[in-house]
């Protein structure tokens, strides 16, 4: 160091100020009132949500005699996977006795094409609305958004007739179309807002570079919008998988989705109520959305944040 540097001995502060007193980071106490309230509330809420799940899991692992003892909170004395196997492969709904597996595959066959179809169309819709301001774009958008506010019940019967007339009533493809249409308003809104938040100069640069409608969509926009696609996929997978109303209205017993089949198992009035099978069946049905959330949680949050704030 040069001679010019003047170093003060440690502890000599400005003259006339209090010598001792607070210095450095403010100390934090683990059991401060703030922490107790904060973590207390969090634990309470978590228990409130987790307790039913716990009851379901332990009940599904018990045999019927043990359930009849009535200790619903106690862990199983003898763990059995029998109810899970039965729920999956041999529980009876109506005439069929092949368990939830049929409904599971039906749901898969409904969900995958619906998700792909609805997201593919909605993303192009959103892109066109955000970047290619065609004539009447605003009117079109308003009409689409109004669609999100019309209650589903109003449209059930007209759609039954439409599907019957085009010969798709009761088929899986009919339900796929219904799901795709009903996903359109909210997904289009989602994509439009996301694409609007992207810098417009990027779009202009691509146009100067000579890319057209599809060129810009596939080569510029798509690679930049992974987060919003993840959000859309999660919304659609959970929404369509959990759907009951359309499933029960637009399909026949052999094409029932998993949710409808679950209802039929749980609500069957004949014979003994097999609580363990019911619990296992319910968990099985809820497993797909659960896995989706666990796998994509981080991306989901990122996508929501990206859509809400900016690109």
């Amino acid at each position, binding site marked *: 160091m040069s001679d010019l540097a003047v170093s003060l001995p440690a502890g000599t502060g400005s003259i006339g100020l209090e010598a001792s007193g607070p210095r450095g980071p403010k100390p934090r106490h683990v059991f401060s009132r703030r922490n107790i309230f904060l973590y207390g509330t969090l634990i309470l809420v978590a228990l409130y949500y987790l307790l039913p799940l716990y009851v379901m899991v332990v009940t599904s692992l018990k045999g019927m005699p043990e359930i009849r003892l009535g200790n619903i909170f106690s862990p199983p004395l003898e763990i059995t996977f029998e109810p899970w196997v039965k729920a999956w492969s041999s529980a009876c709904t109506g005439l069929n006795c092949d368990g939830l597996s049929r409904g599971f595959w039906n749901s898969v066959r409904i969900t995958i094409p619906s998700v792909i179809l609805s997201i593919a169309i909605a993303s192009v819709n959103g892109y066109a609305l955000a970047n290619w301001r065609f004539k009447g774009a605003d009117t079109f958008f308003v009409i689409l958004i109004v669609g999100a506010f019309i209650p589903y019940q109003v449209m059930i019967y007209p759609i039954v007739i439409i599907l019957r007339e085009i010969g798709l009533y009761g088929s899986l493809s009919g339900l796929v179309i219904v799901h795709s249409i009903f996903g359109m308003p909210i997904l289009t809104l989602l994509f439009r807002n996301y694409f609007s938040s992207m810098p417009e100069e990027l779009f*202009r640069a691509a*146009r*100067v*570079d*000579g890319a057209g409608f599809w*060129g810009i969509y596939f080569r510029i926009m798509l690679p930049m919008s992974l987060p919003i696609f993840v959000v859309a996929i999660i919304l659609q997978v959970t929404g369509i998988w959990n759907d009951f109303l359309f499933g029960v209205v637009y399909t026949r017993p052999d094409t029932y989705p998993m949710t409808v089949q679950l209802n039929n198992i749980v609500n069957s009035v004949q014979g003994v109520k097999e609580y363990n099978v019911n619990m296992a069946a319910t968990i099985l049905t809820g497993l797909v959305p659960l896995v989706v959330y666990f796998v994509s949680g981080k991306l989901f949050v990122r996508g929501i944040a990206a859509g809400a704030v900016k690109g």
Partner: protein
Amino acid sequence: MTRIENPSVSIQDLSLNFGAISVLETLNIDVAEGEFIVLLGPSGCGKSTLLNCIAGLLDVSEGRIFIKGKNVTWEEPKDRGIGMVFQSYALYPQMTVEKNLSFGLRVAGIPRDEIAKRIARAAEILQIEPLLQRKPSALSGGQRQRVAIGRALVRDVDVFLFDEPLSNLDAKLRAELRVEIKLLHSKLQNTMIYVTHDQIEAMTLADRIAVMKGGVIQQLDAPQKIYNRPVNRFVAGFLGSPAMNFLDGRLEKDDGNWHFAVEDVRIPLATYAFEKEPVPGAAVFGIRPEHVAFNSGVGWPFTATANVVVVEPMGSDTLVWLKLGNQNFTVRVTSERTPNNADTVSIGFDPMRASLFDAATGNRL
């Protein structure tokens, strides 16, 4: 408006309306081959809009655009023979620098070896060879803008359009890149149209400056001409920092000599070159702070005394705020001759360097 023989870009009676709002009004500009034109104006004056119209990113409401003698009014941007550089760089974030540069060429289906050749040339000119495999997020602002210029360069076009390319950079980088753009222009000799609100960029880069306001070109001329002989009060006030001094007063004639009366001060106008035959009446007298000197007694056509209000040292020189009568007046002096606050000083200038404007219309007299 004087027309140029074989213009590189020619804009004829161009108008643009968004509904009832008129953004550009019957614009006419001819840009000569290899010329560097700067569109200068405050924000909202329509300069970027005009550039977007030339690029084909906005449809015009009226008029025609010619580039290289070809009517491109209805052409797509890619078919106009233009390259464009944007303020926010607008690099494709998911592509490497090389892919960014080649995107337009790949879209156009140009053979691979030709693409490689053009990228190598652009990278060499802009000195971005070491960056070719990086993503834009790994570049600094100056590097990004260089890549953005490169993207226009590889397109091998006749006309370059710059939309405030330096506005996102810090002051030091801006000065560096400004010089680089000037060098690039002298090397390539392409026609360049450059939009900015920064008068230093405009003055330093332009062959001609078009000063715009409210969708109308106020003055289109060489930088020095615009600086020294602004056609109206807006142009006079917009260019120059610190801004030109304006004194409100009257134009009067005594004994056959014109002079400008502001309160009890009389400024003789014998050396002033009138634009047209003057008539007595309300007028505005404008003189730039650097054209006023602290008087050392030598023969200025006009001298006066004034009180110092504030002194602003700026390093290279000092700005002195004075009260001349009741009107504010600034003088730019070298640092060595700085007066103190509340001093009374005498100032002098030559009205030859001044500008006179009509008080009502603001036009140069």
